[in-house]
């Protein structure tokens, strides 16, 4: 397996807060659609924020695409696309303009940025919203645009933190169509956190379970279900719930 994302003994403690991460060791393979599961406050978002260079780790090392952000975080940013929990839109800009500007920020020419904006407007079915200001969009359309922005520069690695929150079922289906296409056809590595376990079950192949800042499982989704259910055919959500009621002792499956 070629490693795309590597965390080595990552720790993070917020000032006056709890120890959010207690020595995370994790590898994500190139081209994987990987999901990080865990209850609220387990440390999922903190790990994503560290990986995307939004916050600093206290100790440990991590690499994305072989790059160490301790030396050059701007280079990592060129290779990653990020869609976090909250929408990150300029309310006064139009859908088309904000996509175009995003492309320009990542070095596309005016023509390329316009072309890419058109592609994403088409992919996320935002044509009727093209000239509307972000502040006037519905919650679902804001979410679509938020996710589209993460893809403008054709990143090699996508970090998606609860990406489909607020999307209607149709938009979610369309979103996953785009993401799985990128993953399968263009080899984009996807690092996903979600509370919609049916989405993780359907799309992810590899997973990790984090609780209280510690990884309690790392392996394939299929293996996780087998491990928890001892042969019984359960969904990921059912397996997850069963696991949570069982021992929280670490159980690492290495590839």
């Amino acid at each position, binding site marked *: 397996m070629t490693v795309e994302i590597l965390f080595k003994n990552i720790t993070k403690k917020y000032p006056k807060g709890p120890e959010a991460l207690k020595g995370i060791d994790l590898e994500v393979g190139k081209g994987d659609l990987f999901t990080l599961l865990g209850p609220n406050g387990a440390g999922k978002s903190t790990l994503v*924020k560290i990986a*995307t*260079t*939004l*916050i600093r780790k206290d100790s440990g090392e991590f690499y994305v695409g072989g790059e160490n952000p301790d030396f050059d975080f*701007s*280079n990592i*940013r*060129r290779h*990653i696309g*990020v869609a*976090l929990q*909250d*929408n*990150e*839109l*300029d*309310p*006064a800009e139009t859908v088309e303009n904000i996509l175009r*500007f*995003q492309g*320009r*920020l*990542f*070095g596309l020419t005016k023509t390329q940025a316009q072309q890419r904006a058109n592609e994403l407007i088409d992919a996320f079915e935002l044509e009727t919203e093209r000239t509307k200001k972000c502040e006037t969009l519905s919650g679902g359309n804001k979410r679509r645009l938020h996710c589209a*922005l993460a893809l403008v520069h054709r990143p090699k690695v996508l970090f998606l933190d609860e990406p489909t929150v607020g999307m209607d079922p149709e938009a979610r289906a369309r979103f996953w169509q785009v993401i799985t296409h990128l993953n399968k056809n263009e080899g984009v590595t996807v690092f996903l956190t979600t509370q919609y376990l049916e989405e993780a079950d359907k799309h992810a192949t590899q997973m990790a379970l984090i609780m209280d800042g510690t990884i309690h499982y790392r392996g394939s989704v299929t293996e996780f279900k087998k491990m928890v259910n001892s042969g019984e055919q359960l969904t990921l959500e059912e397996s997850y719930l069963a696991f949570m009621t069982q021992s929280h002792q670490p159980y690492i499956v290495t590839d």
Partner: protein
Amino acid sequence: MSTNKLIITRSILKLAKQPTAPIMGFAMSLFFLLVYNAGIGGIGHMEAFGDKGYLAFIFPITIISLAMGSSSGAGQTLNADMQSGYFRRLYLSPVSRSMLVIAPMLADTLSSLIFTAILLGIGALFGLPFQFGLVSVAGILMLSLLWATTLCGFSAGIMLRTGQHQSATIVTNAVFPLLFLSTTFLPRELISSQWLLTVSWANPVTYVLEANRYLIGGTSSHGFFILGLLILTITAILSVAFAWRSAKKIKI
């Protein structure tokens, strides 16, 4: 176009689309100019004001209040981006973090310069003298630039550290009393209170006023101009450094 230019252009366009802060600053300056000149301009014949009249004496306050009114613009632009979450989107792009803070400051400073130039034009229509002609104009613009940089840098820095919208105006509110503890309305010779005279010597606003007065009416000395320029250069550097350091402490 480089990413830095893109971010600076965006900041300028943002300010142009929402010019509340600079327009408020400009309105406040005009208010000072018109009301004070009309209300107490008659005292300008007193010897302590020199031979250029009260307009030349009071005009520097319009320059100072202009930047005071508009200096919160950078902080407000940053705040709007932070509130909407878009700042994080920009933060995740390859643009340097410092440029995300410097760009709205540049836009603010540019708007201050433009409105200062307009004020100077209005002043000229009112008969404002320029002691050294175009050199005076250039000097006033330079002082205005440094003053605006000082205020908007501290304003943006405080906003970034606190993440509070209201904090963008802290600097304006803090500087406002300094106007009244200076030689704003009367020259030192006419200030009768000893404590106020003492405070005015320690008040940096005094030197900014006097530096402008040297350039406008020649009613202050060359030394004051040098001192005012020096003080503003130092405060502008400190302010930019503060804003730059604050960029590293942004609460994402």
